[in-house]
């Protein structure tokens, strides 16, 4: 490959692409250089496709599409067959159907929780970091309180208090998730607040809102976006853990954590064939792991591209 010379740059300019687009293509190129990034991207895009086309891949048979259809009440899971491509859980819940609709649910939980957390975190973190003083003190002491109690204990207590079920899990994860973002954004803003370009904006007569949104956040938001992309996986994992503990969705719901929970009694098979029911644990577990891995790879890649320290200046 030929080196990128100054002449090339001039040529590119003459094509007259908008510099923002150029900046974007530059980032995208760097983004796609890493093979791990492409793996992450492929994983997440595949999951997204599955979530999007769930009704086509696995047509719902109940009024609530998230209810996994089950054929019969037989307790022991059935191995993969023509009728059930990935086998069934206990009481003959179809694993394939659960995985497909579980993908949709995972996106729903992950994206909703992380988006709300981001919004709360950015607002509170900006206020705390930018204005400082007593506001900062109050907001940061509240986030400290969240860090003082073990996460899972707090989550379980909150879910029970909110009345169990998926909704309770989502609300709990929202309540517990924002302090991380608030802290990171506050730290970033503290660094930027006294930088000369922010002072210059103040001397230019820019309002506080304008300074935060036009000058500070565009320079600091990437760190939380990276955390957010990694957290989508983590949030789904936590939701699965809560479901596994019996606090999330009810039995037969297309939720990966719930599916693992239903497999609890079948991890080990009968004495003559210990691995008889391998599919009930391995398949949902693998899917969860893959989902989390995808988001982590994506987050890592985002850090490589967006981290200002690693960017060209």
């Amino acid at each position, binding site marked *: 490959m030929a080196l990128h010379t100054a002449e090339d740059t001039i040529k590119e*300019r003459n094509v007259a692409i*908008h*510099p*923002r687009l150029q*900046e974007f293509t530059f980032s995208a190129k760097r983004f796609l250089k890493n093979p791990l990034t492409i793996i992450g991207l492929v994983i997440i895009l595949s999951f997204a496709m599955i979530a999007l086309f769930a009704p086509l891949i696995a047509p719902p048979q109940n009024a609530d599409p998230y209810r996994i259809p089950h054929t019969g009440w037989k307790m022991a899971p059935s191995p993969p067959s023509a009728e059930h491509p990935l086998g069934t859980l206990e009481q003959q819940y179809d694993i394939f159907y659960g995985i497909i609709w579980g993908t949709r649910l995972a996106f729903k939980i992950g994206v909703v929780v992380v988006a709300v957390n981001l919004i709360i975190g950015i607002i509170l973190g900006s206020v705390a970091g930018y204005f400082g003083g007593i506001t900062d003190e109050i907001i940061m002491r509240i986030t400290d309180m969240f860090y003082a109690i073990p996460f899972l204990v707090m989550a379980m207590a909150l879910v029970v208090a909110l009345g169990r079920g998926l909704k309770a899990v989502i609300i709990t994860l929202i309540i517990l998730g924002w302090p991380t973002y608030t802290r990171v954004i506050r730290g970033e803003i503290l660094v930027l607040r006294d*930088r*000369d*370009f922010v*002072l*210059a*904006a*103040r*001397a*230019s*007569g*820019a*309002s506080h809102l*304008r300074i935060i949104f*036009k*000058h500070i956040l*565009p*320079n600091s938001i990437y760190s939380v976006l990276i955390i957010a992309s990694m957290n989508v996986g983590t949030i789904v994992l936590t939701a699965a853990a809560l479901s596994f503990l019996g606090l999330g969705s009810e039995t037969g719901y297309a939720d990966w954590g719930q599916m693992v929970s239903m497999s609890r009694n079948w991890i080990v098979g009968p004495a003559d064939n210990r691995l008889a029911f391998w599919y009930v644990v391995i398949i949902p577990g693998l899917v969860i792991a893959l989902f989390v891995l995808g988001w982590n790879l994506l987050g890592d890649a985002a850090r490589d591209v967006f981290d*200002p320290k690693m960017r*060209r*200046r």
Partner: protein
Amino acid sequence: MAENLIDIRELKKYYPVHGGIFKRHIADIKAVDGVDLKIEKGECLGLVGESGCGKTTLGKTILRLHGATSGRIYFGQSEDIIERIESLLKSENPEERQEGEKLLRQHDLTRLSRKNLLPLRKKIQIVFQDPSNSLNPRMLVKAIIAEPLIAQRLMSGKDIEKRVLELLYTVGLAKEHMMRYPHEFSGGQRQRIAIARALATYPEFILMDEPTSALDVSVQAQILNLLKKLQDEFKLTYLFVTHHLLVVKHISNRIAVMYLGKMAELGPTAEIFDKPLHPYTKALLSAIPIPDPKTKMEKIILSGDVPNPINPPSGCRFHPRCKYAKDICREVEPKLEVAEGRHQVACHRWKEIS
């Protein structure tokens, strides 16, 4: 006598120091401690002093980037109003003093409300030391230069583009620079962008906060000449903060020397260089390197460091490092007094030692 654009009276800026478990207020860093300074319309006043003497703080207080602890800054106010307010404030009668305070809220830059301050933002601008720090890395040059115009809603759409283009030409850049990011420019070009931004709103006063210190020597001269040209062209008033004395000699009409938050000496550039009166100024000037190895010159090397501004020395702040110090210097604080003409000095013994 020339008209004053800025009149600073008894300005103080203290930074509180907190300590202990309860973050009690235990001391103050006295960055600027009672400074009186007048900046005349159309002049370039050089403000020199060593690191940490409060010169940048003083400048940034004029821009209201820092709030003042006490004191007054009058910007573009007529002599009559200033004198009236000052005499009201000194009055014995508490009602008159109250009247003075009320007037201050409309005329004193440090006390203006945000709303009343905004029109002044147009007239007061700043150029920072390091342009790689003072330009938002995620904004296009066009947006950076237009920022004051947009933030203050002075222009819109096509007019902004025209004005930006005009400014680019003024500072020696071209149209194709408009749609680029700051990281695509050299240091000198970036400083030109910063200067263009400062000029955007047709200011009257620009604070130059060491605008050449971060640049290559070859570029420094270009930028200095540009600043000089712009000053003539747009009738600007500069406060030129620097620790580089030769730069100041090149561009300033008058020089103010600061030491530890106080004004030490003030006078026309030629007089300060020819006949420095304050021992500190003498030491500063003797530190300028002369590009001729044969010249023998008496170097005054100051002993010790700048004292801690939390607890400055009694009397004259310079006395622990001054070889002429006597008892009076340790006990009485010298006031800025007129030496001759427009030359002022704050030293008890300037007559004897000169």
